[in-house]
Structures are given as structure tokens and as C-alpha cells.
């Protein structure tokens, strides 16, 4: 049980003495848990359970909405398996943690280039909480009671946003989109801007995969009201950085740069802003400096914004973040290089366009549902209820998302179809012929 040497050193005769401070009422005699297993048995047990899962690599899946499956180079997987990375923690002692610090600095650098933001922090939990934090940050920048968002925002993220705003008692209001194109209705925005608005959020590409040019008109309208843009970093390989249309804060999801969907977690919340807002920003930031000999070195900086220093006045409560996912994104971008990364983005774009075109030829479907250029996903309008379609496709082993009609009655029966470079011709054909079969 316990090393007698240790008991002796502690001057106690029974290990139980170590716990004598626990009052009798608070004690338990044992835990009711399954018997322990050795490795072999656990593997068997576990495989049996997870074999019930049907994965998106075994069968064609067209699910997207922020979580995607992209090809992960073997080298990236190996890098993430380096246990010096994954068994370390927050680099409180920079001298001993230059490896992770440098990688985080590199991640920040990559994301700065993609987003155009002066500073990107070294991760938030996910896109949805990044949105919540962005709204709170807007509130620090410009007090107010109303936060506006484009109606083409993911409902999943919208729900989290509402949760984050509860503490400051602010309301979330939606700006409708153009029914034809799903682009932001700029006029509506203008109308809504009156009053105590402290920020506006728009996703580009939007929930329906549409690349929205109307954003170029937003910044002027907003004036001092901060603009938050949500973007898939992959789209930023071929789309203008949001800085160019006036974003104050850029957020997004980055898990698919280097990690698998993992049933939706862990993810990688990207969070960047312009330098004038720096001190209002949440999350950990790595800065460059030098060591005592003048050698380049990295460390956490501006920690006075953070909870461990600033406590209830901190810009966020975040402590443990998603550093490993940021490392993955960094390694992924390094492995693909600019050329490879742009290549993947283009391939996704083209595949989506082709697939949409093929679906549009099937009776009973309108594709794309919105008449505008799309990135890697697109909405398809359906004559039959999507729930029915979804079920039928599932019987054939094909997975698509839920109906948009629940959250967007004005769109009618429609579903978002996401593709990536990993979809094979076979898989696409299977979708097409299944759709043909249901029409």
C-alpha cells in the first residue's frame, strides 16, 4: 500500500491518519464504481462500446456548420503526439517552456495574417464562446444594452452568445438577410443601429456558406460601434482578411486545422482584435522579448488582463484554454504551407460548387438555395421535409444536417450541405443517386 518509509517520515502509524481532518459526517466508506480493468480488458470493453458509433469517415457525411473533417497530414499527427507538448501546462516559467511559447507565438502570427488582426490570442474554448467573449469585450469597449447579430448566424453559437450576455443583461437582436442571397440586409442594420448598440456580429461566409460582399458597407454605418466578424480560417486563405472591411474583432473556429471532429470537442476558438482594443481582450497572449543574454525569447504577457492577476476585474475567466489545438493549427499551417492551404480552400470551394450544381439538376431540390457565391457549404431547398429526407439518407448510410426550417422558417425546408477535399467521387455520387431516389 504505502511506503512504510513515508509513514515513518510523517510520524504516523496508519495512512488513515492523513485524512483525520475530514469530519465523520462527510466521510464515505467506498465508491460504487465498476471493477478496475487492465489495459487489455479495457481496450476490449471500450472497442465494444465505440463500435456502435458510425463515423463520418466510414460513411459519407455532409455535416458542417463549424465542425469539419479535413485531411490531416501524418506529420501533424506525429507532432501532436509529442508528449512534451501535450503533458505540459500553461507556461508559467517561460525559460523552461520556450517550445510551447514559440509555437503559440507562431500560431498567433499565422492567425494575424489570416484575420488581419494585430493580435490574436492563444485560444478560446471554441467559436461559440469566442462569440460570447467578443460580445462582452464589445461591452467593455462601448457600454450599451443591445448586441446586434446577422440573422445568418449559426443558432448553435447564438445560444451560447445569449448565455454569455446574461451577466450584463444585454439583449441580442437579429438583422435579417436578403431572402434571395442570404446576404446581410444593410438597410435593416441601419434601422436597428439607433439606441444603445454596443456591437454587431456577422459571420462571413455565413451559416449558409455564402460569401457576403455587403460587409464592405457595414463599417461606415457602424461608426464607433465595434464590428465582430466570425470566419472559418480556411475561407481566409482565399477571402479578404476581415480587417480590410473594418472588423474590430475577428473570431472563428480552428479545430479543423489539424484535428479531427471528435464529436465536437475539443475545438479551437480563434480570437483576434485591433491593437487599440488590446487591453480589453480576453485570453492568453504570448509576446516576444529577449533573455538575459539578449537571445530571442517568448513569454506570456499582458497578464494583468487575466483572472489569476485581475480576479473579478479580469477580461475573462478563462484559464485552461485550447493551446494544444492552437499547436495543431500551427503545425497544420506549417505542413501545408501557404500554397497547400490555399489549395485546400480552393478545392473545397470548387467541390461545393460542383456538387451544388449536380443537386440543382435533381427534381425536388433547389441548389444552392441562395443565389450567391458559396465557399465550402451551401443550403439546398427541398420539396419534402428535411427530417424525412435525413432519415431516408441515413438508412443508406448518408448523414446530412437538420432542417433549417426550425430556426429559419422563412427559408422553408432546406439543409446545409458541407463538402471537403476528403469527399470521394464515390461519396458524392452516392449522395446524388440517393437524392434522386428520394425526389
Amino acid at each position, binding site marked *: 500500500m504505502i511506503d512504510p518509509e513515508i509513514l515513518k517520515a510523517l510520524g504516523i502509524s496508519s495512512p488513515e491518519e492523513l485524512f483525520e481532518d475530514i469530519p465523520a459526517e462527510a466521510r464515505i466508506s467506498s465508491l460504487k464504481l*465498476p471493477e478496475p480493468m487492465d489495459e487489455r480488458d479495457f481496450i476490449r470493453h471500450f472497442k465494444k462500446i465505440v463500435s456502435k458509433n458510425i463515423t463520418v469517415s466510414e460513411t459519407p457525411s455532409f*455535416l458542417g456548420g463549424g465542425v469539419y473533417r479535413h485531411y490531416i497530414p501524418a506529420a501533424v499527427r506525429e507532432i501532436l503526439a509529442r*508528449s512534451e507538448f501535450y503533458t505540459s501546462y*500553461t507556461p508559467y*516559467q517561460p525559460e523552461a517552456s520556450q517550445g510551447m511559447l514559440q509555437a503559440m507565438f507562431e500560431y498567433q*502570427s499565422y492567425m494575424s495574417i489570416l484575420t488581419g488582426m494585430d493580435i490574436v490570442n492563444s485560444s478560446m474554448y471554441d467559436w461559440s464562446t469566442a462569440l460570447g467573449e467578443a460580445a462582452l469585450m464589445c461591452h467593455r469597449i462601448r457600454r450599451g444594452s443591445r448586441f446586434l447579430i446577422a440573422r445568418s448566424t449559426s443558432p448553435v453559437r447564438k445560444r451560447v452568445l445569449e448565455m454569455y450576455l446574461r451577466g450584463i443583461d444585454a439583449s441580442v437582436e437579429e438583422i435579417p438577410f436578403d431572402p434571395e442571397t442570404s446576404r446581410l440586409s444593410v438597410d435593416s442594420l441601419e434601422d436597428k443601429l439607433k439606441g444603445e448598440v454596443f456591437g454587431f456580429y456577422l459571420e462571413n461566409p455565413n451559416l449558409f456558406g455564402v460569401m457576403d*460582399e455587403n460587409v464592405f458597407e457595414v463599417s461606415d454605418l457602424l461608426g464607433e460601434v465595434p464590428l465582430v466578424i466570425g470566419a472559418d480560417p480556411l475561407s481566409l486563405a482565399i477571402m479578404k482578411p476581415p480587417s480590410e472591411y473594418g472588423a474590430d474583432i475577428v473570431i472563428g473556429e480552428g479545430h479543423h486545422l489539424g484535428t479531427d471532429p471528435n464529436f465536437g470537442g*475539443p475545438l479551437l476558438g480563434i480570437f483576434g482584435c485591433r491593437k487599440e482594443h488590446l487591453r480589453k481582450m480576453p485570453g492568453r497572449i504570448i509576446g516576444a522579448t529577449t533573455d538575459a543574454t539578449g537571445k530571442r525569447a517568448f513569454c506570456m504577457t499582458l497578464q494583468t488582463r487575466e483572472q489569476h492577476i485581475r480576479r473579478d476585474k479580469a477580461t475573462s475567466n478563462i484559464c485552461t*484554454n485550447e493551446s494544444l489545438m492552437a499547436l495543431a493549427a500551427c503545425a497544420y499551417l506549417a505542413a501545408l504551407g501557404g500554397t497547400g492551404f490555399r489549395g485546400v480552400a480552393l478545392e473545397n470551394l470548387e467541390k461545393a460548387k460542383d456538387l451544388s450544381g449536380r443537386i440543382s439538376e435533381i427534381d425536388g431540390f433547389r441548389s444552392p438555395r441562395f443565389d450567391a457565391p458559396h465557399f465550402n457549404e451551401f443550403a439546398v431547398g427541398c420539396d419534402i421535409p428535411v427530417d424525412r429526407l435525413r432519415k431516408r439518407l441515413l438508412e443508406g448510410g448518408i448523414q446530412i444536417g437538420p432542417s433549417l426550417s426550425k430556426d429559419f422558417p422563412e427559408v422553408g425546408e432546406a439543409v446545409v450541405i458541407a463538402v471537403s477535399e476528403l469527399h470521394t467521387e464515390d461519396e458524392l455520387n452516392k449522395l446524388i443517386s440517393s437524392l434522386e431516389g428520394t425526389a
Partner: protein
Amino acid sequence: MNYHQASYDEPLLFEIGSSDDDFDVSLLRDIPKQIRREALPLPDIPEREVFKHFVRLSQMNFSVDSGFYPLGSCTMKYNPKLAEQVARYSKVTDLHPEQDPSTVQGALQIMNELEGYLAEIGGVDAVTLQPAAGAQGEFTGLQIVRAYHSDRGGDRNEVIVPDTAHGTNPASAAMAGYDLIEIPSKSGHVDCDALEAIVGNDTAALMLTNPNTLGIFERDVIGIADIVHRAGALLYYDGANLNAIMGRSTPGSMNFDIVHFNLHKTFATPHGGGGPGAGPVGVKQFLEPYLPVPRIVRKGDRFDLDYERPKSIGTVRAYVGNFAVLVRAYCYIRMMGAEGLRDASLHAVANANYLRAKLEKLFELPFGGRRMHEFVLSGRSLKERGLRTFDFAKRLLDHGFHSPTVYFPHIVDEAMMIEPTETESSDTLDRFVAAFEAILHEDPEIVQTAPHNTSVGRVDEVKAARNLIFNFGSLKALEK
């Protein structure tokens, strides 16, 4: 001491590769011109260079797998490799969160079972796995507190924390919209009189961890709970220190109402260089209706996701939680079993006290006596030699050890907070003590300029805060 951390003059990725600038923009013709990117200055780097780069960086990173990491409050225990292995199965990794529940029965079963184990370990009735980390668990718990009170028609706006609380406690309270009341501790304990005086109709909750941040068990926890409950407030347990009591007590049996678990601490999931973690939250039955959606529900042999929970606070992050982390914790708990967990807390506490007994001969231990899984020394006496805890911590790095958590909790002057965990051998602890002794005999000059054996020397943090260089672009501009 023959230690030296690996050290390479490793350039930034942006200095290794070069970016291809003669890109054919006609390929972008499907993108509206106005929004089309014109330049993508990301470097192209051969795989050989990328891999070498990260191998080198990894070697320049202190980790549990390379050494002793007694970072107090963080529970840097060893992470069993089996958990890593099973978390890499494609049956785990290749699941999309929006799949039809019928296609993810295995994943839901794992989560359902894990909820059950955590409920048992926490002495609570229901658990949500959604929160992404401990701090988010706190935020979730406080939203539950809010929902509970407002449901009962009595909004309350204050959250009380002891002055030893971890920074996330006040920060989470603030984020959830609460006013913060800090109560000073007394001899390292919650001051019940002060608490009694402060608690009232405005009190929404008291947040506590037990054993507390000093590693001292709050003997009077049941009394504290009574005070809080009598005032109609709730008692929140910060699970960061659960490792000390697993299998011997539970937050539930101490009469806490809400508890978060740090799977990356107590349940051996790796810390990921800063994350991901997972911060499940458990509650007593009367709070169950408020838990976030979706809830994982079991109907006979089938599992489903339930969104129809009228009293639910909503969702705190997208989807069901950090699934890949949950899988690792599931593996850990199943491999340990009840006895294994009980044994873990025993060794965690024994190791801490073993170290405490040796080190209190060298440094002052405020509020003396036995500790649970961690303890806090004061490095005050170093001042006599012109040194600070800061210097001592840096010098420990030279001896091949990670430093303890320093300057926290704030109530201890020049604090060093040491948590060895159960996975360290007495050999390692002895070496650590020897390093303490050695450093106290070293030339103060060497200590003051430490570290010397790390990949870089003492880092100028002031300069970092002054220069504000957060990416390669600015760095290049500055270094020019």
C-alpha cells in the same frame, strides 16, 4: 547536477520557409472580386523542416513526461498512455457533433456512464459534461445558481469567495454578473464568524474548494454549509482539489450543492500545454432541471440527446463537451476503479506530507501542521540573502524541476505552492528536497541570475509588456 534542457537556436517558421508570391489569382475567379484575397504570405516549408522544428521545440518544453512538475493547484499527475491510444481510435475522433443520435450510441454511452461515475465520486445526483474547463464549469455553476434563485423569485446579486480563492472564482462570478465579496481567512481557514456576518439575502452562493488552496482541509465545512444554506444561498465546490479526497469524502457529503470537476487535474487527462481540459458540473437533485442542454438521456438500451428542458440554463458552449478529453477520463476511471482512486488520494496526500515534512525544515510553513495534497511555503526568509521566491523558482529549473506555483495564494508572502501528486516516487521527492537544500547553499549570485540550464536564460517579461510584439510581422519590424 548534470541537467541541461535541450537548447536550439530555432528560427520561427516564417524564417524557415518562404512564401510563394507568384500565385495565379485567376484560380480565385469563383470568389466575388471585392472579397477575394490578394496575397497570402504564409510560408511553404518542406515537411523535413517542419518536423525538425517541432521536435526541437518540444524538447525545449518542460513537461510531466520529462520531469517533476509540482505546480500547486494544477495536479500535474502522469497521464496514462492507454488513454491517449484509445482517444485516437477513429471511432472516437471521426464523429461529428450533429450526427443523428442513432449513429453515436457508443459516444453517448461513454458519456452517460462517465456522468454516473462523476456523480458517484462527487456525491451529487446529476452531471453535465458540457463545460470546456474548470473556469467554464464555474460559469455554468453560477448560471445554475442564478436560474435557481430567479426560479424561486428571489434574485440575489452577491457571490462570496475566500481570499485564497483561485482567480477564476471571482472572474467567473463577475462574468456571470455577480458582485464579488471576498472574505479574509483566519489561520488558513474560512473565518466562520466573518462568513456569518456577511451572508444574507443578497448572497447567491459561496464558492469554496476543500481542501483549500493552502492544502488545509476545512474541518468545519458542514458548519459553513449550514451558514450558507440557512441564508438561502447555495454552496459551490471548486473541484480543483478533489484529488485529495477521492473515495474518502465527496463534495456532496460535505453538503455542497454544485461542484465542478477538472478532468485534466483529478482524472489524469493531459494538460495540453495549457488546454484542452474539461470541467463537468455536478449538482444535487433539486438543481438538476437547470443543467445545460442537451442532456444525455438513457431510454432502455438507447441513448439520446434531450433539448426539451424548460428550466435549463441553455448551453455554455457548442455541442456536448470536450469529448476527446472525456474519453480519456473515462479510461482513467475504468482502469482505476474505486480502490485505485482511493489509493490515488492516499498517495497524493502522503506524498505532499512527506515533502511538507522535509521542506518545512528549510522554509516557513505558514499555519503549520499537516496538509492534504498540497502545501504552501513562504519564501520570505530568502530575503535575508537578497533573494526572492522568484529567484528560487528559477533556480529549481536549473536542477531539472519545474517550479511550484509561486505568489499564490496571495495571503502567503512569497508563496510557493507545491503539489507533488500521487504519481511521483519517493525517489523523485527526495531529489527535489536535495535540490532545495543545494540551492540554499549556492552562491546567491547564481540563484539571482538563474536559470542557466534552460533553453534560454532569464526572460525579460517587462520588455515583453513594453514592446507588445505578438506576431512575426511586428517582431521582424522591431528586429530590423
